[in-house]
């Protein structure tokens, strides 16, 4: 009997080829979309983590309360000890110190007269450390537009757009005006040796990147850091790792008796900004895509099934006349569609993975299309194939064929047996 059904299925192209193609295309799109959106979301998460939030971040409670204003008067003190402790406590996390600050850049002429001025956001990172991972993390080499990397103290990078606006040439000395950790005014000269463009407007509007030691000197932040960012050795953010880190971090802090606004706290990526919503969204993406494709494909297959089914009422009539039950005919329809669903899903998953892989390996440069974006999003779109992509397509693939066939097959029950013949005799 199964052989009989399969023979019918394989020989009747409208019964197998079309539905298999529909399923394959739908599954391919679901798999590809899933990998693609996972890629975008993960890249976005990683980019935000790299530039601002870390996978986890250690900072003072007071700093955390006004994080967006970089309140360096609330910065962490004695960070050499703190970092050493963190490294011991949580060795699977890479810890890097950062100072972010706001200020004004003054571009003087040869005589020291101001030619141009503009507000900047500064990031002090470890630029010169022998084993620094920061330049790679921030993709500074890839983002260079002009000039070269800073190679000694007092050399900085500025956003390319900002440099153009202010007429800064490579080698120019500029003056940073900012407030020190203690609230005084800070003036520090820097030499601009290169420009960068990250392709993200928030970063390209006016950012300077300096070595953290230079920033400490400028802002009177000896052995202090605004933030200590932690990055997981697995290379990507996960709530599980973050929660683990958090509990280990606080387990030790229980011993500390005085807790005030200078007490270091640990924030996970999702606890900062709107990142929690974003992480949640990235998790539900698979479910959302699967759901959308189940609905869409079911409707297509239902209609295909209806057409095929009506065409087949004659066949059903004969089979019923020969003594098959309606249940059996209906079940055989479901078997057929299950088979179609499996085959279509396999083909679709293969193609979906192939296209996702191409996008994962080669990426799609969208920097022109994304000009002016205010969200920190990567400009090179890359898919990311995860385990889920190997099976996620089967859910809409099989579910929608079954649903489509079931809906179309209800006609068998709705019609009287003798009526099925009427339609076939006509």
């Amino acid at each position, binding site marked *: 009997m199964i052989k009989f059904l399969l*023979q*019918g299925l394989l020989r009747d192209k409208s019964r197998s080829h079309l539905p298999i193609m529909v399923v394959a295309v739908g599954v391919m799109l679901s798999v590809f979309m899933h990998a693609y959106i996972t890629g975008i979301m993960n890249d976005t998460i990683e980019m935000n983590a790299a530039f601002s939030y870390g996978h986890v971040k250690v900072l003072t409670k007071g700093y955390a309360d006004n994080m967006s204003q970089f309140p360096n008067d609330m910065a962490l003190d004695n960070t050499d000890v703190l970092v050493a402790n963190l490294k011991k406590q949580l060795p699977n996390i890479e810890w890097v110190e950062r100072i972010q600050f706001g200020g004004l850049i003054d571009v003087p002429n040869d005589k020291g007269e101001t030619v141009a001025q503009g507000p900047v956001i500064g990031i002090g990172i470890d630029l010169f450390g022998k084993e620094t991972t920061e330049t790679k993390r921030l993709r500074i080499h890839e983002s260079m537009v002009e000039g070269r990397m800073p190679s000694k103290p007092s050399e900085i990078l500025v956003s390319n757009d900002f440099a153009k606006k202010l007429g800064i040439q490579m080698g120019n000395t500029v003056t940073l005006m900012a407030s020190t950790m203690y609230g005084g005014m800070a003036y520090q000269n820097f030499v601009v040796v290169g420009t960068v463009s990250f392709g993200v407007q928030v970063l390209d509007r006016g950012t300077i990147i300096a070595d953290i030691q230079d920033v400490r000197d400028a802002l009177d932040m000896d052995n202090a850091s605004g933030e200590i960012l932690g990055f997981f050795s697995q290379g990507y953010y996960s709530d599980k790792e973050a929660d683990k880190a958090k509990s280990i971090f606080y387990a030790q802090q229980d011993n500390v008796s005085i807790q005030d606004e200078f007490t270091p706290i640990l924030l996970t990526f999702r606890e900062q900004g709107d990142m929690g919503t974003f992480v949640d969204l990235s998790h539900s993406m698979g479910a959302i895509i699967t759901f959308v494709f189940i609905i869409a494909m079911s409707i297509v297959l239902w209609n295909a099934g209806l057409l095929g089914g009506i065409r087949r009422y004659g066949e059903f009539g004969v*089979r019923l006349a020969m*003594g*098959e039950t309606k249940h059996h005919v209906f079940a055989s329809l479901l078997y057929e569609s299950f088979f179609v669903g499996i085959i279509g899903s396999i083909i679709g998953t293969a193609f979906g993975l192939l296209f996702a892989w191409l996008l994962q390996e080669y990426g799609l440069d969208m920097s022109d299309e994304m000009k002016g974006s205010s969200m920190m999003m990567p400009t090179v779109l890359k898919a990311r194939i995860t385990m889920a992509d190997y099976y996620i397509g089967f859910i809409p693939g099989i579910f929608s064929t079954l649903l489509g066939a079931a809906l179309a097959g209800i006609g068998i029950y709705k019609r009287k*047996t003798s009526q099925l013949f009427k339609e076939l005799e006509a």
Partner: protein
Amino acid sequence: MNNDIIINIQQLVKRFPIGKGEFTALKGITTSFRKGEFAGLIGPSGSGKTTLLNIIGSLDMPSEGEVTVLDVSVGSLTAKQAALLRKEKLGFIFQSYNLLQVHTVFENVEFPLLLLHYNASERKKMVMEALDWVGLTDKAQSKPSQLSGGECQRVAIARAMVKKPVLVLADEPTANLDATNSHTILRTMEKLNKELQTTFIFATHDEKVISYLHRKVFLDDGYIVKDEWVKND
């Protein structure tokens, strides 16, 4: 011919709902058929031939009255029991053959045997025997689309006969056939009727079919108007 009654119909009424009202297609039919009959329901279009045949074949249910086929009451059968009756005891032949187009002649004839769970070698033997009855052993691997109308109807006869049913119901089996083919398939059925004692009931208004019948049951407007025995051997 023996006198076993295999179909007994008492005061059969069949009504169909039409819109809000209903239409009475059979208005009180009482008759019976015995094993081995070669009988026909004859009458003008709309007289109720197909309706009566469908009820005998348990494809449709009586509205009133009692219809007993092979000792079971059609009116009280569940869908499953009706399917079982059809599967084991009945064969159908239709005006438009209704062969499964994607399957070969062999597979079409084999299908009823699949439902009855015969094993492969039994099936092969029985299918080839049935194709032999209708003279189509050489077409076993053909598709219905490669056959003439007459050949298709002979395949349909083989399919109806392969399980050696007690009763074969044939609704206008010659309507799509020319005279030569009509006579061929009628002679085939006549032969099977004699050799296997299979009961045949036709619904027809084709003179060629009528000339072969041993019994003619005339229907008009839902009533039996005449019941005539032609030959009695």
